[in-house]
């Protein structure tokens, strides 16, 4: 027995000499991370550089350029009232607005809603999860409330909240984030329950470290990898739900160019002009796919335990 453990100590020591790949190196080698990351970076670039990519103001319209098919040229009236020539790469809608410009500007809303709803869900989920995992008396009641939230289908919560608050960017983000909070809370709680049994936490407790310091500096850093993965999935779901809300007509006001809004506007004429629905649809599907693939890649490289589970 004694020799066994000595051999084990020896082998772990010699293993430590071999240089381990850092998480960053593993990430960069993973194909899912590469593909998802590149597509996502391209979309971020499109969102930021939208004004430079041959677009016009997405709210501009021209009665003379209604329902153009993709590639047709027409005119568009600027805010000053001048008519300028413009090629409608993706056609125009029934108001004579440029679909290409609206789709490109729509990237901004989608990415923003996705990212911020993930951040909001993570922040509240982490907070509640830490509290629940660390303060045992709070655990029972809090988890029952979370069970209750999880028993209501996510889209219904989002729809009801947006209906109650009247849609704005902030209310849409919060409405999307709220149904995601219980899952994050559960994840953080389970992580806390495992980590708090680790020797280094025990050591910190025996040294008299206050609870909040243990949570912040000893437990939280060890939850980063699974939370990053979870955050990516929430981001993907958030982008989808925002598009669904807009598409159903309960999301952001219709003049704001979001992919869901463009599709909602185009659905009436889908039979004659399918491009109104198809172009934003392709962008939407591509974005969500990229974020999901990135999430899978992150999971495989950063959180092998979770990868094995699914």
């Amino acid at each position, binding site marked *: 027995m004694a020799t066994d453990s000595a051999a084990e100590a020896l082998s772990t020591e010699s293993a430590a000499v071999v240089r381990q790949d850092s998480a960053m190196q593993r990430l960069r080698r993973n194909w899912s991370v590469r593909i998802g990351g590149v597509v996502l970076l391209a979309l971020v670039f499109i969102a930021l550089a939208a004004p430079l990519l041959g677009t016009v103001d997405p709210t501009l319209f021209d009665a003379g350029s209604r329902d153009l098919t993709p590639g047709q040229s027409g005119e568009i009236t600027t805010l000053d009232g001048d008519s300028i020539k413009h090629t409608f790469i993706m056609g125009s809608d029934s108001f004579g607005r440029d679909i290409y410009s609206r789709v490109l500007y729509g990237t901004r809303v989608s990415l923003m809603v996705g990212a911020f709803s993930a951040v909001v869900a993570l922040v509240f989920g982490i907070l509640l999860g830490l509290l629940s995992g660390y303060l045992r008396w709070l655990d029972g009641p809090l988890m029952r409330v979370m069970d209750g939230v999880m028993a209501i289908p996510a889209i219904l919560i989002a729809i009801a909240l947006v209906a109650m608050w009247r849609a704005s960017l902030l209310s849409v983000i919060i409405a999307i984030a709220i149904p995601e909070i219980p899952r994050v809370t559960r994840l953080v709680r389970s992580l806390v329950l495992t980590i708090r049994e680790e020797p280094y936490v025990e050591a910190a407790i025996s040294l008299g470290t206050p609870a909040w310091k243990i949570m912040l500096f000893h437990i939280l850093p060890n939850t980063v990898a699974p939370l990053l993965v979870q955050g990516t999935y929430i981001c993907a779901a958030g982008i989808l739900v925002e598009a669904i809300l807009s598409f159903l007509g309960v999301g952001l006001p219709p003049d704001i160019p979001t992919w869901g809004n463009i599709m909602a506007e185009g659905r009436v004429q*889908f039979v004659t002009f399918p491009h109104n629905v198809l172009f934003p649809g392709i962008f939407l599907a591509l974005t969500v796919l990229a974020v*999901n693939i990135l999430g899978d890649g992150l999971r495989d490289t950063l959180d092998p335990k979770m990868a094995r589970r699914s």
Partner: protein
Amino acid sequence: MYKFLARRLLSTIPVLAIVAVLVFLMLRLTPGDPAAILAGDAANTEQIARIREGLGLDRPLPVQFAIWAKSILSGDLGESFYFKMKVTSLIGQRLEATLSLATLTIIFAVFTAVPLGVLAAWRFGGWFDRILMGFSVMGFSVPVFVLAYILIWIVSLKLGWLPVQGYKPIAEGFGPFIRHLILPAITLSVIYIALIARVTRASVLEALGEDYIRTARAKGLPESRVLIRHALTNAAVPIVTVIGIGIALLIGGVVVTESVYAIPGLGRLTVDAVLARDFPTIQGVILFFSVIYVMINLLVDLSYVFFDPRIRY
């Protein structure tokens, strides 16, 4: 068994109670006059006054909840201001379409996803497995309504095989009923198939690593029997669990699918109620969906006994 059944039934009560509290608070914690919000844009001042009186809005919050909970427990979900009728009868009216769509979707999804998942696990790492997993990620990413429009475009408009949209009750004949439901059910099942296939694959893969599989193969059983009788049966518990959990996805999908295909069901009702800001209906539908979801997962729990004799209640 009966004792367990009773205990498990009782355990759904706190969850449902919390759902009720949440739905109740959703409205009370919003800025503005709850009576005016509850009445919606279509209501007049007289109606608003009547609601305020009926709900006892001048009383403390717990008392208000008690009044509301009492009317719900007696089966009264209030009256819709937009549709001018009882919310319960409104739900009853729309139930057939949604139930038909959901049932067809579940049947189609389970009978597609489970064989696909088993095949992928059987040929783990092979081309079929990779393609299926690729499709599964795509299934999670393609929005329901985009998929719906692509299907309508190809199947209904280009090929002319099925009607574009609409719904025919089963009372008007099975043929038209099913023809109107095929596309919506396929649309709705895609994300569900992705989910179930993924879990089936993982679960069967795990079962295939067990000793009894080697024994079964060693005694010369045909591979199909090994896969179905030995691997799949033992992998069933996670699969039925995910079918139950997936109902939440399905409900979300129903809301969108019914809107695209113009099916007069509960999903469509939800959207119409939200657009009209008809809060009694919104509350009623959310409560209804949540109860269904909780009950289905209760049934899933109970079905474990059937799939795994080791589990005893």
